């Protein structure tokens, strides 16, 4: 039977943050960030390099201390109860936190010891985790001999060993191929009632989120479900590359239902009526157009819509995980 108190506790958000600010010296990494994350949901933080998502992750994972603002995780205060919070969360970093010179089993055993598990309890949890991550056949293999996807599963297994209520993933799928990424999410989705917080710069992974928060330059620029965010852009998006785009912009600006702007030498028109403008644009400016693309808005468009700049994924973002592995 569920008591009213238990119901209230279940209904309470898993994470509630307000007024977060974090500075590295004179550089502000987070500025007045606040959000609520429902229990049992997957919440993504999407942003380019320097948007503040990694700093936010470090704060929530208790790696660095709060400078300003408040965070409640599972009803516990991050500032004063970080040790208690660590017992109830699992963390997966972008760079592998597994020991490649040890076997899968040894990695899990050491991780269990750090959680205070021992004896039959530890063995039983390890068996469960190996089954959940489908690593039973590789349990005795050295982690250094596993593929990137399998290593990530070991990380997830370590993270789930203590039956966490919240899992924090920092760009955890960077460097993984789509199949390995899907497998990682399959394992996480199978955990009943688990709240997942993840940071990512990958648009397709951001689609895994029930709720998404977009960050840019340390500030929240948009929040909602991925569908809501995309709907907010509205209609369709027409992108045009070619000659004399400023003149084209001037000629259509007044008739575009949504926004019309030049971004990085690309003319972007947003709105419900942009498909109807295509014949006229082709008739009047067809000679100078090199590319014309009509599409439904994506999260890329949401970012662009909110910030006026493209969501650029740098090579360092994409290869960070791979480089760290190659260094070994």
């Amino acid at each position, binding site marked *: 039977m569920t008591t009213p108190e238990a119901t209230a506790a279940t209904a309470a958000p898993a994470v509630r943050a307000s007024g977060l600010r974090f500075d590295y010296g004179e550089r502000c990494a987070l500025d007045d960030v606040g959000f609520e994350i429902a229990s049992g949901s997957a919440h993504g933080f999407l942003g380019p390099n320097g948007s503040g998502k990694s700093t936010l992750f470090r704060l929530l994972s208790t*790696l*660095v*201390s709060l400078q300003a603002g408040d965070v409640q995780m599972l009803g516990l205060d991050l500032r004063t109860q970080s040790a208690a919070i660590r017992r109830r969360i699992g*963390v997966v*970093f*972008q760079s*592998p*936190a597994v020991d490649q010179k040890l076997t899968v089993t*040894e990695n899990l055993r050491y991780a269990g*010891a750090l959680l205070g598990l021992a004896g039959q309890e530890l063995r039983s949890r390890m068996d469960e985790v190996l089954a959940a991550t489908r690593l039973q056949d590789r349990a005795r293999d050295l982690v250094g001999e596993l593929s990137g996807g399998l290593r990530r599963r070991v990380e997830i297994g370590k993270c789930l060993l203590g039956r966490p209520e919240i899992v924090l993933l920092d760009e955890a799928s960077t460097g993984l191929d789509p199949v390995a990424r899907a497998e990682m999410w399959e394992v996480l989705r199978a955990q009943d009632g688990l709240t997942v917080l993840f940071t990512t710069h990958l648009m397709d992974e951001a689609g895994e989120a029930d709720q998404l928060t977009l960050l840019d330059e340390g500030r929240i620029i948009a929040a909602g479900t991925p569908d809501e965010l995309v709907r907010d852009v509205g209609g369709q998006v027409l992108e045009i590359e070619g000659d004399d785009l400023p003149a084209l912009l001037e000629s259509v600006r007044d008739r575009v239902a949504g926004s019309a702007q030049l971004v990085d030498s690309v003319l972007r028109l947003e709105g419900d009526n942009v498909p109807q403008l295509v014949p006229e644009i082709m008739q009047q400016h067809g000679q100078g157009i090199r590319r014309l693309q009509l599409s439904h808005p994506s999260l890329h468009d949401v970012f662009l819509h909110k910030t006026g700049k493209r969501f650029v994924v740098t090579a360092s973002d994409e290869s960070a995980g791979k480089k760290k592995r190659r260094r070994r």
Partner: protein
Amino acid sequence: MMMRATIALWHREIVRFLRDRSRLTGSLLQPVIFWVLFSGALHGSFKPGGVDYGQYFFVGTLAMITLFTAIFSTITVIEDRKEGFLQGVLVSPVPRSAIALGKILGGATLGLGLAVLFLLLAPFAGVSLGFTTVLATLGVLALLAVAVTGMGFALAWVMDSTAGYHGIMMLVFMPMLLLSGAFFPMEQAHAALSWVRFVNPMTYGVGALRHVVQGEVAGVPSLTVCLLGTTIFALLMFALGTWVATRRSVRNAT
């Protein structure tokens, strides 16, 4: 929980060491080669206090083993941070003092273990060791190993690169070893250097080892002073290592 975590981290140090064949081979052979070459080369020309140099340097080699093992085991702190393993430990519920404890005891155990293996060569150095002498030697070696591993841990914790750590090793650890009386007696050293031996904590560790292995030795502080100095050195370095690990900083989070 703290004890389990400490044991786990200590065990990891041992397992990683035994699996790293090049490190294992180097750690086992390097002190033997040093001892054979130095004692062979200086055999006829250098008899500190009338003692054969092979015997004299045998004690120095024991100190060298604990120091070098501490250096190479604590350098893994920097590797652990770079590889992300340390972050995983830092967000676990264990107190950070358990991390320091596991690492320092792991490195000290390795140093002690390698020194024990080297002790098996005592008959070849003309050093006779009774049961009591072996126990006393192990006690001093344990103190010295904790001291130098704690010092190495504290330095490694605040450093970002293994290259930088090697630089500090040459700047701090090597002079400490050279001026400790491990390679040559310091009592006849130049006046500008002679005071250094008294402030060099390794002097007391090496001195204590000389007392228990060779008996009374001229020019070395008394056994009581040496034991006291080594114990204080061990306690201070252990406390320093634990203290630096318990400070939360942005650097360890990256």
